[in-house]
């Protein structure tokens, strides 16, 4: 069974559109994360949620809005997509907010045309 899953795997869209990426974990973890990996493979944290509560927000434009309907899901909604949003987005989870090991999803490659 897949521990951390993301949908879709690939997303190609036009500038200005609004899109969502979904993430689900079946590990029973309390904490979930979104990371962005740019074209130079630089991986940077965007958000973290613990039990549906936002605990880390790394100066991400407010066009990005994470939503956690329950602790097993963390979705990422992006409004008014820009070319610079093209990247691979990784979801991850950890047992708790202070637990060191994070488990990553397979990534969603977003291409904005």
């Amino acid at each position, binding site marked *: 069974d897949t521990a951390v899953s993301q949908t879709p795997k690939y997303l190609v869209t036009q500038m200005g559109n609004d899109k969502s990426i979904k993430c689900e974990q079946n590990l029973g973890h309390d*904490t979930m994360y979104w990371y962005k990996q740019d074209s130079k*493979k630089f991986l940077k944290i965007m958000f*973290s949620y613990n039990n549906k509560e936002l605990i880390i927000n790394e100066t991400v434009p407010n066009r990005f809005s994470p939503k956690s309907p329950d602790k097993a899901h963390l979705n990422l909604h992006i409004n008014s997509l820009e070319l610079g949003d093209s990247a691979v987005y990784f979801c991850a989870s950890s047992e708790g907010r202070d637990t*060191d090991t994070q488990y*990553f999803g397979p990534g969603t490659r977003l291409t904005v045309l």
Partner: protein
Amino acid sequence: AQRVTQPEKLLSVFKGAPVELKCNYSYSGSPELFWYVQYSRQRLQLLLRHISRESIKGFTADLNKGETSFHLKKPFAQEEDSAMYYCALRILTGGGNKLTFGTGTQLKVEL
């Protein structure tokens, strides 16, 4: 601010040769460091953590606070070691657990 530097974008070695993937960090607090690996078409996964002082798949990494380094080493490279390796620094903030990653080093083991 914290920073993780991996100076080599690509490291190419022959099978059986020693491997050293460099990682330097900058952090004013007490560091916790990790190596994550991403094999081709697979997800990013934890390889090892400095706290455990373990050897995983023949890889070891020692935290050197004096040199602010956490280099990843393996005495004899194998073909299956070819992957992207990320060094990461963990910081516990009031909000939680934050990993700062380096830019990664692509290791290519040639026959």
